[in-house]
């Protein structure tokens, strides 16, 4: 078995390595840290530390709203989307491949320190599931639903709840663009009345509910709730597999910065979006999986050193999510660091002449502490 470490050091010639036999010989020799395997289903330990390409049309279709902002800027500058295959993602994919869909949905919680790649791992899994044909329910950042809300309407459905029409309509629009074909196939099982004249009959495609939510923005949160409930009830039949991907799940059980008209603070249960999402994340349905990420960066009233599930979720959240499969995401290993550094060099992102030297590389490794986000921020001005 070839030692991957030595293969990297001899990669200065930049030729194709013989480790990955399924790499089709390209026109120009790609370097060792790339892999031409763009289907996440075929990623194995062999591909660990390498970057795989996602075609730009797929990026627009699969991730209308999921990718981190800096990664989107990088995709635009380099004209390609390259995601690194890392060990936590490979473990998650192996678990998903071997999961029995007749059993209740398994919950996976991706946690780790700041900037170690939790959101990118989630996006890798979402890409895999959308390639496999699952219905992906991707909430890009649950923290956006509990803070900075300009309009809070009182819900017409339940008396104490508060609606968020703007956030709900934005999410419905993105959901529609990524899951078009499912919305035509899945039918509603109940009659829903939206107002005096508007109602959706039983047996109509779910696309109509989404259209209703987008057209009448006041009822967008209720439309979202209806969509979630229908998907949950119908997923056990097996006609489609459901993936619930939530980024920043600790927002659902924390505190909010929103206030009602009488300046009293709003707790998360009083928000319709949060209430429905909590019901979705419970494991009382089968036929899919729930993959979530903890995030300290957008969280409210949590210290910046907190990163474990116990600290970020609090007692209530931990009990609600228990039992779950924890997946820690560490900083870059030396091999992953080499691969990221080589990719930046190849794409001419590191322009400083000293950045090409060994000293520069050692300094980058030391200053960033092999943290992906710090490396990205350091390599920006260089």
């Amino acid at each position, binding site marked *: 078995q070839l030692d991957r470490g030595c293969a990297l050091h001899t990669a200065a010639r930049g030729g194709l390595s013989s480790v990955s036999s399924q790499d089709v010989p390209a026109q120009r020799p790609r370097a060792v840290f790339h892999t031409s395997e763009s289907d996440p289903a075929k990623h194995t330990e062999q591909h660990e530390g390498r970057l795989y390409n996602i075609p730009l049309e797929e990026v627009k279709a699969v991730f209308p709203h999921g990718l981190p902002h800096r990664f989107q800027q990088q995709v635009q500058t380099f004209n390609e989307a390259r995601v690194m295959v890392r060990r936590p993602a490979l473990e998650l994919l192996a678990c998903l491949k071997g999961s029995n869909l007749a059993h209740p949905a398994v919950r996976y919680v991706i946690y780790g320190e700041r900037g170690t790649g939790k959101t990118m791992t989630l996006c890798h899994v979402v890409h895999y599931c959308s390639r496999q044909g699952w219905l992906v329910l991707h909430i890009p950042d649950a923290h956006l639903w509990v803070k900075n809300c300009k309009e809070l309407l009182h819900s017409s459905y339940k008396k104490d709840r508060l609606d968020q029409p703007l956030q709900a309509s934005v999410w419905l629009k993105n959901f529609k663009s990524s899951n078009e074909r499912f919305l035509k196939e899945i039918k509603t099982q109940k009659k829903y009345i939206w107002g005096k004249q508007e109602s959706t009959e039983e047996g109509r495609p779910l696309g109509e509910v989404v259209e209703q939510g987008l057209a009448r923005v006041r009822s967008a949160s209720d439309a979202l709730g209806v969509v979630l409930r229908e998907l949950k009830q119908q997923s056990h039949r097996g006609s489609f597999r459901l993936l619930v991907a939530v980024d920043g799940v600790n927002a659902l059980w924390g505190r909010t910065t929103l206030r009602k008209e009488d300046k009293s603070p709003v707790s998360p249960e009083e928000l319709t979006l949060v209430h429905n999402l909590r019901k979705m994340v419970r494991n009382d349905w089968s036929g899919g999986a729930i993959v979530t990420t903890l995030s300290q960066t957008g969280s409210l009233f949590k210290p910046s050193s907190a990163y474990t599930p116990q600290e970020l979720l609090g007692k209530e959240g931990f009990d609600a999510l228990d039992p779950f499969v924890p997946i820690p995401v560490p900083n870059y290993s030396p091999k992953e660091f080499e691969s990221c550094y080589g990719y930046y060099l190849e794409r*001419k992102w590191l*322009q*400083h*002449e000293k*950045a090409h030297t060994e000293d*520069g590389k050692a*300094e980058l490794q030391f200053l960033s502490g092999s943290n992906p986000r710090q490396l990205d921020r350091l390599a*920006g*001005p*260089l």
Partner: protein
Amino acid sequence: RIMPVRWSRYNPSYLEPEVKTELYQKPLEELTEEEREQMELKAVRPIKAAPPTLSSSVFSDPMISKFTNMMMKSGNKVLARSLMSQTLEAIKRKQLEKYHKAPENEKETIECNPYVIFHQALKNCQPIIGLSNITRGGKTYQVPVPLTDNRKRFLAMKWLITECRENKHRRTMMPEKLSQELLLAFNNEGPVIKKKHVLHKMAEANRAYAHFRWW
């Protein structure tokens, strides 16, 4: 008793701190005679405190540090440095996008290194001759006068910063505006180059008073 260090005059026996790491990594045999003497002197003499701007990083650049200091307001070096790094990143992004869209034969002409662009832009903005006010017989004349290197650099950086602070829309961020101005100055266009040309023309117009200068 607290011994003030920063702006007080050091005893002449204090030596400057040595930042270059290569000197320390060389084994004893390879050192030349002067370096050996220097090392022995350092063992007995005290050394001055290193200023915070002095860095042993391979990526540090004295011109960039000077520019960052000039951009700094009320001592907020953190903000000034982050603005500078965002500017360099913005320049790099713009140039890289242009590079990837350009056809093959033009790719070599596009400069992507933000440091090269920064230095060249500053060089292009430096005036060659300046004006100074000299009073003769009650009237003040604008007399053309040669400038030192330091003064040229200072004027170029000052013009760039004032231009970016004043002539921009309320909502544009400083890095964006600065990167725009630096790219224009790199191509010898833009308001800062115009200001330099205006100064040169004034100096040319006041040639007659050049003999008022006595230094």
